[in-house]
Every structure is written in structure tokens, then in C-alpha cells.
């Protein structure tokens, strides 16, 4: 069925039906599928649907009321989104839905409640029926907004995401700041080497790193990035994101677990980056609904203490990096950071220099980084 789905038009339309009945598509991708076809994010679909302004206004009002009905109940429940945030998401959904040319006019019309020309037709990138369906999923099923629109804005990128792929977090943006500010500024020749993003998911770190390497490169010798992931959905989505940014010659996506697909570059890597699963298993059940019920557990669950994969990465990274190579890993917070630094000092004495713990913007100690000696 996945193969039958046309990727360009109307992702909500199931090919089994002859009539285009919008269908709520949720968690429909199975990880066993080899040939995964990535979904096209809403904002990249052709504006081949339309609705009258009054129909759109009606939907908008309905959606706004649904958002407002939430109040702060999700916050109280599991620190989820409140009405204000949901209404902002609704504006973004509209931005992605309405074809660019008339977007600002239509949006200001909706905002001001202007009722002139209700019959004017608005070009949309998805049928309005589907919009009723997905917004209900957003509110009632707590389906993450990023899956609803099929993309996440991350740094200066817009990355396709879909069920089965971890939605990149704003905290993780800092890893790229570390690559640029710490690694490339201090050791410029690293910009020419091979870098690895392990457990790449949507390809966020790999793509942003490739772009950072290009801006720091001197002459033609630009570095390359290898992105690995165990999940076939992640591999498919990352590959399509890499292609959308025209980086297929710079970023190579390989399927496999952590260092497994990297045997050919052992000891040669200029940098290793990763945002591995780090949530302790016991915390999974209490997660915010958007995360716990919708995002891939494979990308979240880090074992009993949450450090299974982080330790695996630290054990392997010394032999993967060339001398002077850089690493940065995201962690669950202060406790894991301190534990990892201690682990490195005790178990890998003399392997690394300039080890550091770096906080995210919220002030939580989030990253462990250092250079191979």
C-alpha cells in the first residue's frame, strides 16, 4: 500500500479508493517495509485544491475554537501545549496550506474577520476535509504538529519529518554551534575531513554540519558527512532531505547501527556527532503524549539509566576519530553529562583533551564534547 501511494499529490488519499476520500493517515508506516517512500511535507505539495474563502474561514474558526478549548489542560496533564501555542501552530498550518502568492492577503483576511467576497476561491495544498481531519488529530490524538505538516523548521532548515522519525529538537541546534564555534574555528582543517552523524533520524545534524563544513572550507577540499540510522524510515527521510538540499554528493546516508556501517572510515573521522536515545526506560510511560504516543521509541529509549547508547558511542568514538578529531553528544541532562565525563576520565584516560559539558539555552547541561588526543 505504501508503494501505491503517490508521493506528490494528496498524501491523504489512499490508492485503494478510486474516489479521493481524504483519509487520516497515522502511523501507517511499518518499519519492516524496505521501500519506504517519504511523504511530501504539506508546504511542498502543489496547490491543486481549493476552497471558498467562507469555507476556509469556517474551518479556521472551528480549528481556533478547538485549540482554545484546550486551555491549559495539556500543560497540567503532561506539560503539553496550551491554547496559545496551538493557535500559533494553527497559523503555521495555514501558512503551509495556502499557496504562497495570495497567502498574506488571505491570512490577514482571516485574522481581521473581514467578510468581503466570501465566494473567492483560495488555492490550497490539501483538501479542506483533510484539514478537519488532521487538526482533530492534533488536538484530540495529540499528534505532533510537525507530523501534521510533515516538516520541522530547525536552524535555517526546513526538514521533512513523518511518523517513524524523531522530530529534531531545538536543543540539538546547539550541536551545530559547537561544530562551528568550537571545532571548525579552533581546528580549521577539520572542515576537510569525514564527519559522522550517528542515528541521524531526519538528517538534521548531518545536513547542517555539511553546510557548516562548506562555509568553513578553503578551496575545493570540502569535508563530507556520513549519516547512519538503523531505521529504514529514517534512512529514507534523511536521504530525501539531503537531496532537497542538494547535498547528495556531500552527505551519504547509510543504514545500520551506530558505528557498524563505518568500518571503512575507522580512525579517519574528523568528527563524530550524535543525538542518541537517552531517556531512561522508566520515564517513557510518563512522556508528553506528543512524544510518548507518536515518536519512535527506538529514538528515545536509552535503557534503564538512559546511557546504554551513549556509553556505546563513547566506547567506540576513540577508535573512530583520527587524532585531533572532535566529538559532541547530546544527553539527558546534568546527571548523564557528569557520569559520562567521569566515565571517560576513568575508562579512557589520556584519550581525549578539552573535554567539556555544554548547556542548552534553557541552562540544562546537555552536551558532552571533546577532542581526540
Amino acid at each position, binding site marked *: 500500500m505504501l508503494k501505491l501511494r503517490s508521493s506528490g499529490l494528496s498524501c491523504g488519499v489512499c490508492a485503494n479508493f478510486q474516489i479521493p476520500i481524504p483519509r487520516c493517515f497515522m502511523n501507517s508506516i511499518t518499519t519492516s517495509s524496505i521501500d519506504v517512500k517519504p511523504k511530501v511535507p504539506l508546504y511542498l505539495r502543489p496547490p491543486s485544491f481549493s476552497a471558498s474563502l467562507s469555507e476556509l474561514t469556517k474551518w479556521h474558526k472551528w480549528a481556533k475554537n478547538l485549540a482554545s478549548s484546550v486551555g491549559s489542560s495539556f500543560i497540567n496533564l503532561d506539560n503539553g501545549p496550551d491554547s496559545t501555542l496551538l493557535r500559533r501552530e494553527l497559523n*503555521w498550518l495555514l501558512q503551509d496550506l495556502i499557496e504562497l502568492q495570495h497567502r498574506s492577503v488571505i491570512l490577514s483576511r482571516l485574522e481581521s474577520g473581514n467578510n468581503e467576497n466570501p465566494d473567492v476561491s483560495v488555492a490550497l495544498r490539501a483538501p479542506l476535509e483533510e484539514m478537519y481531519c488532521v487538526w482533530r488529530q492534533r488536538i484530540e490524538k495529540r499528534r505532533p504538529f510537525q507530523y501534521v505538516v510533515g516538516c520541522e523548521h530547525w536552524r535555517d532548515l526546513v526538514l521533512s519529518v513523518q511518523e517513524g522519525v524523531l522530530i529534531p529538537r531545538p536543543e540539538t541546534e546547539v550541536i551545530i554551534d559547537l561544530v562551528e564555534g568550537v571545532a571548525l574555528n579552533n581546528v580549521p582543517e577539520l572542515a576537510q575531513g569525514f564527519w559522522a552523524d550517528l542515528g541521524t533520524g531526519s538528517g538534521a545534524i548531518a545536513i547542517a554540519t555539511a553546510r557548516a563544513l562548506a562555509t568553513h572550507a578553503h578551496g575545493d577540499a570540502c569535508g563530507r558527512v556520513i549519516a547512519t540510522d538503523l531505521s529504514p524510515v529514517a534512512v529514507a527521510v534523511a536521504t530525501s532531505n539531503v537531496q532537497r538540499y542538494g547535498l547528495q554528493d556531500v552527505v551519504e546516508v547509510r543504514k545500520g547501527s551506530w558505528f557498524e556501517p563505518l568500518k571503512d572510515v575507522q580512525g579517519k573521522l574528523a568528527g563524530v556527532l550524535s543525538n542518541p536515545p537517552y531517556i531512561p526506560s522508566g520515564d517513557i510511560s510518563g512522556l508528553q503524549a506528543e512524544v510518548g504516543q507518536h515518536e519512535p521509541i527506538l529514538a528515545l529509549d536509552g535503557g534503564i539509566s538512559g546511557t546504554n547508547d551513549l556509553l556505546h558511542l563513547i566506547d567506540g568514538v576513540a577508535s573512530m576519530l583520527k587524532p585531533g578529531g572532535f566529538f559532541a553528544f547530546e544527553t539527558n541532562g546534568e546527571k548523564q553529562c557528569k557520569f559520562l565525563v567521569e566515565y571517560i576520565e576513568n575508562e579512557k584516560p589520556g584519550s581525549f583533551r578539552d573535554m567539556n559539558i555544554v548547556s542548552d539555552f534553557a541552562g540544562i547541561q546537555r552536551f558532552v564534547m571533546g577532542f581526540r588526543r
Partner: protein
Amino acid sequence: MSYFIFKRSSNGSFCISQYIRTKTRAFSSLHPLDNFLDSNQNSKVFDPGCSSILHNSLKKPFGSFSFLPSSSLLGSQNQHSLRLNRKGWICAREFGSQAAIEPCTSDGLTVDGIASSKWTILEESESDWKSHAAAIAQSIQVIKRRLQWKKLMVRLDLLSAELNKPDLWNDPVHAGKISREHGSLMGKMKEVKAFEQELLEHIDMIKLAREEDDTELESESMKALLRMRRDSKDKELEALLAGEHDSCSCYIEVQAGAGGTESMDWAAMVMQMYKTWAQRRGYGVTVVDEMPGEIAGIKRATIKVDGEYAFGYAKAEVGVHRLVRISPFDSGKRRHTSFAAVAVIPILGDGSSRVQINESDLRIERFRAGGAGGQHVNTTESAVRIVHIPTGVTATCQNERSQHQNKASAMAVLQSRLDQLEMARQAQMNSQHTQSLTEISWGNQIRTYVLHPYRLVKDLRTNYEVSDPDSVLEGDLDSFILSYLSASLDKGEGEQ
């Protein structure tokens, strides 16, 4: 009256050679005629048949200190003027020691005269020459105020005198400077003069056409006058928006005053007013930061307004806006007074000198930090707040979809705020510009919007008022803005 007119069928405009369209006033009998002219201006070649014959003689009244070697040329020109002035509208007007020639119509009407006669200015569509003429005269006066006309004239006299000194070119650098300034001021002056002249000519033509019952000529002249009216409006705007940063894009920031939901609702109304105003003007509008109120409205919001002269217009809105109405949030249906403060910050171009920001002076905060963060949380909330520690200036952005972009937007806002702070500091050092300091400071109540018990919007600075608050709140702000800009020109003139 003898005249004949060549019509140029190709463009429909008139070409007049021997018609007394304009009289020349002000021959002070005490001054020899030579004194009206100065050698710098005499180099212009006459072109009989061109409508600007008279301009040439009229544009030269400012060289009273000059002595003129080329009297033969002057002689012929004077004859020309005198011949044209055979009807004899001669009157004298003194500017100190100088004599000036004030152009006027055949019946003695001057531009100042038109402006002071207070003819009603009707819509452009009304074909009424007096209305057109009054509108044009008004614009010309604004343009002259902007140029600081009287000072300009004095300066021109000085420069002309300087230029006529025989030893001027002993110092070529100085001479070059003087000559350039003279040329530039002369250009400005001539442009206005020519414009005045054209107005008077058209008026004469209309009067003449009526006398001669020439409807075709009358309607042609009326059209020409209308064209001038539109043109003069543009020129007036150009003159009003001649401030250093007027052409910049800008941020508009609205902050609710004390008073809870009612004033937050008012702040949202004010912000909406600016959004529609900016959109109608064709500016790009982006919400940078918006802090919604708990029940309705906004606590504060910042929008970015992209486009030419956005700052020039919007700066007229800086200050406190007051609303009087029966609050929809008051179950007792009582009348409430609410306030919203508006700040406008120019976004300086790359060419301007901008404040250097040290990364180490910044504290970057993520809003709503709470909980474990990272993989635990899926939120589209990625607001960023940046504090510039040395000044305490902050900027927040939460409407971009990535934290990185929010940070970039907040940095842009912060940069503009610091630039503005620096501008204010420099203005303070330079007492001449104290006025601009009050312009950007908060706390001045500038406008009142009354929805009950009567309906009125009144600008407290200019006393400009309209009785239709709805249209104003829907973004119909231009007349308020223009009347303020024009009034602040007067103020500037008065101070100098």
C-alpha cells in the same frame, strides 16, 4: 491681449511663445537692473518658444551683491522682461537690502497668495481649478519649509557674492566647494521656482480660456493642473520624508498599558490598525514577537514593517494612544480609558554605521524553559530572548518556527534597538536634535480615540481630528501621519 499658442499635438501640451503668462513683480527702483542678475545664472541660453522663457528672467533675483561685467547680455534680457511686462504689474518688495521678484499671474495672484486665500481643497475628481491650485500651493509651501526657504535664499546670496569675488579661484579647493554648494542649492531653488511658475501659468491659461471661451484649452489646462496636483503631492511627501533614516524599514512595537484585559484588547486593536495600514501601503508585515493576554488582546507585540519609507511614516505614531469606550469586558457596562504605547525603531541599512555587539555581552535565554527538555519534550515553542547585559536592552522573538531563526530575528531587533539607543545618545550630545529625542521617547500621549459617548479620533499634537474612529482603526492613518509630519516641519523651521 495679444497671444498665440502652438499646440503640440504629439503630447497635447502647450507651447507658448509670445504670451504674457506671468508678470514680473518687484523692480526696486533703487537698484539698477543689473543687480538683479548675477553672472552665474546668465550663462543659460535663451530658448524662445520654450515655455520657460520667463523662468530664466525670474530665477535670477538673488545676486544683489554681484557686480556684473556682461551688461550687454543683461541689457537684452531686461528689455525682454520689460516688453513682457507692458501691462505694468510692477510692485516692490524688499528683503532687507535685497530685492526679490515674486512671480504672479496676470492679475497679481502669487503662490503665497493662493495658499493664504484658504480656498477649499476638494477631491481630485472635482474639476475646480481653485481647489487644485490651493492643493498645489499648499504642497509648495511644505516643500519650501522643508528646504528652509528663507535660509536657503540668504545662503544663496552669500554664495553668489563669494563666487563673484575676483580672487575666488586663488584657493581652488575652497572655490570648488563654494561652487558645488551654490550649484546644489540653486538646483533646488530653481526646481521650486519652476514649479511655482508652472502653477501660475496654468491658472493664467484657465482664466484666459474662460475669457476667450475656449473650452478645449480650459479642459487641457485643468488636466495639466490636476497632473501638477498629483505631482506636487509626491514632491511634498519626498520633502516630508527627508529624515536621515526615513527611507528605512522599521519595527513597530505596541505595549498595553495598565488596566488588564481592556487595555490588552486595546493594544491588539492598535496593532491591527498598523498591520492593515502597512498592508494597504504595500509593505511587508511580519509578526516578530507577540505576548498574548490571558483573556483577550496582547500584552505586547512587535511587527516588522518592510518597505521604503516605512520608518519615515511610522515614526509619526510614536507615543501613547488613548482609548475611551464602554468596555466589552466590563459586565457593568462602564466607560473605560485605556492606554497603549507605541514605539517605532528604524532598521538601519548596511551602509549606516551600526553598533558593534560583542557576543560576550549577550545572555541568550529560551523562554518557558521547564521540565527535562531535549527528547522528553516536543514543543513548537522555541522563543528566544536576548539580553544585552551592558545596556539591559532585550529583544524577544517567538514567531519563527525554529529557535535558530527566532534567535536571528531577536538579534536583528536587538541590533536595531541598540542602534536607536546610540542615535538617541548622539542626538542628546548634539542639542540641536533634542526634538528627535522626544520623538523616540515614550510617555507622550499623542492621540485619543473616543468611541463613547461621542465618536472622535483626535491627534493631540496637531489637533487634527476625524469623527470616524472605525476607519482609523481599520488603518486609515495617512492623514494623521501627514498632518503630523507637516506640523513637525513647522516646528523645525521655528526652532531654526
